[in-house]
């Protein structure tokens, strides 16, 4: 039997680990904010349903925190296990956000300890505050980790002279040119994805007519967060696109499937790029629009892959399709969000309608699919580099053979872990009537 090539196996294992971690950690960093809102409403209104929602969500947060914490621990080792030649040089340069992230993550764990075990034990507002700290420190962790990834796209804080990494400045490396646009886009994406996923599950329960008041309150909080994020995300997407066009023209060309430099450049919608013939089949072209999206005017030149040396070109098919998927899902979520806010302000009757709930239930996975697609764009679009323009991914991989077996092992572990998480969540949801929605909501009492 042919065993997978070590380099491909290492890349697959890294992609798999990050692909799972990104979901666990997004939920773990965003849900505490939903929880804090519900908790705030409980403390200010005294309506028991808000307390019940808070308690139910806190169990979800705990489950995702546990999985996020272990998958994050694994990643801190995998960086070295899979990419030692990268870490040997990059560790001291891009390590600053990780050393701060250690603190933020630690604070998050401590605050979660206070929050989960602190009911009726501390002053109610101190207890509320510890829940908020879980969210804030989680968000800070997320921003720091993304800043480290941004450095791989936009290396800074060192001089690369004859293969040596000189004049290392970790602070400059942390505040590299890509950190702001990437961190902004990722954080908003986390809110949109988690908001839609949580709202979708509660919408489904409402459609089934179970524990209506409980799920209605939970749905509204999650939907407001998710919809708000989905509406502002295109702005940060535009900011990111212009940033990538300036810093990484090769990545932009790959995600837009622009094989040849164009002036003005057309936006390629959909289509199937053929890397052999350098053409995009079955696509819709909108003249001049790519020039506008990348540079702000309809006539400017956009660099195609023909300007990139053949050995330095990223793959095109995967980034282009992933990018189309991300934008498509984002647009769909934006539409649902617009309808939701219209309902909230002008069409109250829609909120009770089944079609809106069905729309939300259908959108449950949309945000996380978009997150995975966006992650694929940024990682595959950076290839063949692990440090853009400095170190090739193929030169960074571990010398140890047989990585395929480790990849199979991790695949099995992560898939079964995810099955258990889904199993636990379904049990949590099924037990809502018995565990959480016990006191009759005051609205009905």
């Amino acid at each position: 039997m042919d065993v997978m090539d070590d380099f491909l196996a290492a890349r697959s294992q890294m992609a798999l680990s990050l692909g799972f971690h990104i979901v666990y950690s997004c939920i773990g960093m965003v849900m505490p904010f939903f929880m804090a809102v519900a908790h705030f409403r409980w403390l200010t209104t005294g309506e028991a349903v808000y307390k019940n929602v808070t308690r139910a969500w806190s169990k979800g947060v705990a489950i995702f925190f546990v999985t996020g914490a272990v998958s994050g621990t694994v990643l801190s080792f995998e960086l070295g296990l899979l990419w030692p030649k990268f870490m040997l040089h990059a560790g001291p340069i891009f390590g600053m956000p990780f050393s701060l992230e250690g603190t933020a993550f630690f604070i998050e764990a401590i605050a979660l300890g206070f929050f989960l075990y602190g009911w009726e034990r501390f002053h109610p507002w101190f207890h509320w505050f510890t829940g908020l700290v879980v969210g804030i420190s989680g968000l800070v962790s997320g921003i720091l980790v993304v800043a480290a990834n941004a450095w791989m796209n936009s290396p800074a804080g060192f001089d690369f002279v004859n293969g040596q990494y000189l004049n290392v400045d970790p602070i400059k490396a942390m505040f590299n040119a890509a950190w702001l646009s990437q961190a902004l886009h990722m954080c908003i994406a986390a809110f949109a994805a988690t908001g839609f996923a949580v709202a979708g599950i509660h919408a489904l329960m409402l459609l089934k007519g179970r524990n209506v008041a409980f799920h209605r309150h939970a749905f509204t909080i999650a939907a407001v967060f998710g919809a708000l994020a989905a509406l502002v995300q295109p702005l940060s997407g535009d900011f990111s696109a212009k940033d990538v066009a300036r810093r990484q023209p090769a990545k932009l060309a790959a995600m837009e499937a622009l094989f040849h430099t164009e002036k003005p450049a057309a936006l390629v919608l959909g289509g199937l790029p053929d890397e052999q013939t350098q053409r995009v089949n079955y696509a819709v072209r909108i003249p001049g629009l790519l020039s506008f999206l990348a540079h702000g005017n309809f006539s400017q030149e956009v660099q195609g892959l023909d300007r990139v040396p053949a050995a330095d070109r990223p793959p095109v098919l995967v980034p282009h399709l992933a990018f189309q998927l991300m934008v498509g899902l984002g647009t769909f979520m934006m539409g649902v969000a617009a309808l939701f806010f219209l309902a909230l302000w002008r069409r109250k009757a829609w909120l009770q309608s089944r079609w809106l709930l069905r729309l939300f239930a259908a959108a449950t996975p949309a945000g996380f699919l978009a997150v995975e697609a966006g992650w694929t764009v940024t990682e595959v679009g950076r290839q063949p580099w692990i440090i853009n323009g400095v170190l090739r991914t193929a030169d960074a991989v571990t010398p140890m053979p047989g990585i395929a077996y480790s990849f199979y092992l991790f695949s099995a572990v992560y898939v079964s872990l995810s099955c258990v998480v889904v199993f636990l969540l379904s049990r949590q949801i099924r037990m809502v009537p018995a565990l959480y929605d016990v006191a009759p909501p005051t609205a009905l009492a």
Partner: protein
Amino acid sequence: MPFMSYVVIAYLFLAILLYLLLGGADFGGGIIELFTSEKNRHLTRQTVYRAIGPVWEANHMWLIIAVVILFVGFPRIYTTMSVHLHIPLLLMLLGIIARGTAFGFRHYDAVHDRMQAVYNRIFVYSSAVTPFFLGVVAGSVLAGRIDPGAPDFWSAYVASWLHPFSVAVGLFTVALCGYLAAVYTVGEAKTAADRQRFVRKTRLLTAVTVGAGGAVFAAAYREGIPLLHWVLGNAVGRTALGLATASLGLLWYRLGRGPAALLRVLAGFQATMILLAIGYAHFPDFLLVRGGPNLSLVRELAPARTVQALGEALLLGSLFILPALFYLYYSFERDKSRGVSVDG
């Protein structure tokens, strides 16, 4: 050497020590279930949970702090370990995944049914597997079998860690974790009968740990590793070993009726002295390489500005972490003494 270099090195050892004491006791919580009869298992489990429940996540953060210090501050040490100890590190990671999730899931599963037994079994076995491979990694760092120029798969990636010395250190680590947890539980006992049970378990685990320690010396002797000389060849090592032995005698004597805090401090002190006795002889060398040169904490230090920034980040982080962590431990100790139940 600039001041911040000392800060970074001190924090590396502090993180390793705290992970051994806190994370180790946490592993031990699972390990002592292996030493517990079926009928007392529930009591042991409840007691362990009461002792570590609220703080168990925080206990494992020290490992992440240690890893981050290694890869930011000592990149060559981190990458050499990653390459040549890939296999035991991988097995340790599988243990960490299994254990962390099993512990969390057994507590946060909304339905308490037969799945609890599954979580328990995974938790107990991974509680032993994880510190075993941690110990194997620690033993391999000291054994001097890591060979960057090794010609073949076996000598580069297997012989670097698979030898009697590192296996003995792995077993000793498991025993030590169990011992620490057993001492912690003595202080958690609610009745005199419970205390007697936990005292018996602690005596058993003390004997096992001392025996495993002897096995480490025997394996070192057989492998030609001058462990005895490292520990007894200098005044610091001799003093540390002497104090550890004396405090073990005191602990043994006071186990039946001494206050919980004293017992815990003594057990923690012993673990600290063991780490000191073993680490001191080589300092500042950290990772011993076959044929040398060894990887030293001084020579392998990252560039100056990185060390400065890392040291500042660690000091700044401590300002947030230590008071919050202290208050967390304090709050739950206070509530336990008031008899408030610790349930999520």
